[in-house]
């Protein structure tokens, strides 16, 4: 927690513009709120006893018909929207973070192998990556979750949803890590210290993990920020399409999906507040990520 709190100070020392510092504070605030959801949320949306259908579809407290005990109004089942959003953000961030972690682990490992060994290993890994990259994220993710749905029977799908989502997102994102790490590894492998390590007969595993890995990690950390934003968006999109998190354990995307059914009857808040939270979260992470990329590794600017 101490490192989290001192991060804005770090940004100041690195000469970040005001907008980036503000974005970093907003992002950290939202992440902290989401992580602390079970302590700061006014109600517990996972507890069936805490909400009542009588309170369903109440507008936000600041409108004329609002109930002061529900700051942002309630959803179709009488759940407090703010609490549902806090818990939902936690789910979104956990899945996004999990996907980035899995993609980074897979991508860094394969990138190291491809860059260090070259030749056939390299060609195989990179061709697979090329094929994957030639399909858009959303299509692959839909496909993975579609297949997973078919394999797991109905009830198990809800239980496995987070894992399925993490895999569905990571299957596309690992390629970018692999490409970056492969290029950096090739540069490092040609350097004297790695050649020296080879000459004294260190096993490849040790050279890769102890000698090369620390020197290729910085671009990985930089692309992770932007990938986190992208992963949160993909998760939200999948949940919105109805193949992500189930309504019993909603993420921000699921909340927007539920709200979308009520938009036509003029009940705008159920969809709009979670959407706003999602956009602010992703936007602030993107601003920080963009700046980090330009600051530390201008070469990484990819066309998006």
């Amino acid at each position: 927690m101490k490192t989290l709190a001192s991060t804005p100070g770090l940004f100041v020392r690195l000469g970040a513009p005001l907008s980036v510092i503000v974005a970093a504070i907003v992002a950290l605030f939202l992440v902290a709120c989401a992580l602390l959801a079970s302590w700061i949320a006014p109600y517990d949306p996972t507890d069936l006893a805490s909400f009542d259908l009588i309170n369903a579809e109440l507008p936000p407290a600041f409108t004329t018909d609002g109930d002061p005990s529900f700051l942002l109004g309630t959803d179709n089942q009488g759940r407090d929207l703010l609490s549902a959003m806090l818990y939902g953000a936690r789910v979104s961030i956990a899945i996004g973070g999990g996907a980035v972690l899995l993609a980074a682990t897979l991508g860094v490992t394969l990138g190291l192998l491809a860059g260090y060994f070259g030749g056939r290993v390299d060609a195989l890994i990179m061709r697979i990556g090329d094929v994957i990259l030639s399909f858009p994220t959303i299509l692959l993710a839909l496909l993975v979750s579609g297949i997973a749905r078919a394999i797991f029977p109905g009830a198990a799908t809800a239980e496995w949803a987070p894992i399925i989502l993490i895999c569905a997102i990571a299957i596309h994102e690992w390629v970018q890590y692999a490409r970056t790490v492969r290029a950096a590894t090739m540069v490092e492998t040609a350097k004297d210290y790695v050649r020296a390590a080879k000459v004294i007969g260190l096993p490849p595993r040790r050279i890769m993990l102890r000698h090369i890995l620390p020197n290729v990690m910085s671009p990985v950390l930089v692309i992770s920020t932007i990938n986190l934003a992208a992963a949160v968006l993909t998760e939200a999109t999948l949940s919105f399409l109805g193949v992500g998190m189930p309504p019993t354990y909603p993420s921000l995307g699921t909340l927007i999906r539920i709200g979308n059914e009520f938009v036509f009857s003029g009940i705008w808040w159920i969809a709009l507040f979670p959407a706003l939270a999602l956009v602010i979260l992703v936007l602030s992470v993107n601003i920080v990520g963009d700046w980090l990329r330009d600051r530390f590794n201008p070469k990484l600017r990819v066309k998006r």
Partner: protein
Amino acid sequence: MFNVLISRLGQAVLVMLVVSAVSFVMFRYVGDPVATMSRENASVEEKAELRRSLGLDQPLVVQYGHFLSRTLRGDLGISYRNQRPVTELIAERLPATLELVIIATILSLALGIPLGVLCALKPHGIAARLVQALSLIGISTPTFVTGIVLILVFAVSLGWLPSFGRGQVVDLGWWSTGFLTISGLKSLLLPGITLALYQLTLIMRLVRAEMIDVLSSDYIRFAKARGLPARYIHFRLALRNALMPVITVTGLQIGSLIAFAIVTETVFQWPGMGLLFIQAVSFVDIPVMAAYLLFVGLLFVLINTVVDILYAVVDPRLRARSA
């Protein structure tokens, strides 16, 4: 040249084989076709008979061969949900999606190019900064949120535009078009804008980057030194060259747009292929899923391969590199 052609085509065929293998595996192992197709109280013998008649008792490679030859003949099976041939379903939905994608592409080019040029010509002006900031917001806003907001404003609050469906369509042979009726055009507007916004940021950023690149090149500096009018330099000399990669990327993006239309089609209940696919995913309608995968895969591979080959024809340096 010939080598490039062969290697690109080889790669394309390889990718399509992989995609078709994934489709096949989905067909064969996800869910049991015998259980789906036989009567509830079918005896073991009946099931075995059905298994034999479907060819499921043959070796895997043979089955895959049958699958390939059926697919090449355009027979993609029958949808579990609609009980109709999948090829027919896709052909029926294709026009809706393509019309949406065409409108979105036109809109995003018509807006993205001028905005990109504006940002490149005055990179520190207020307008350029505003556009840059908006584009970051654009990247961070998921398509479905844009769609919902547009529906809230223009359909629910103002009541100007319809919020779902295609409106009235006119059949031209097998192609049903919404371009010819007022209600069809009105229905196209909101989903078109939603899908275009996803593409707009990309085109704008690309035009800006290319323009800045071209503007700092020698021939532009020479044109300036000659005292040619700024308008002529910017729009006749610079923009033309900056647009080349934009056209390529727009072409490459058509495949992505078709896939991404899934989201837009869901928000606006647009009866296109995307909606067909997402319904298939939630109903575990494997033949439709597999067929959609094959179709979109083919489209991607075709577009990528054609672009690669065209590049090799146009740019001799690429030929040398890959040879």
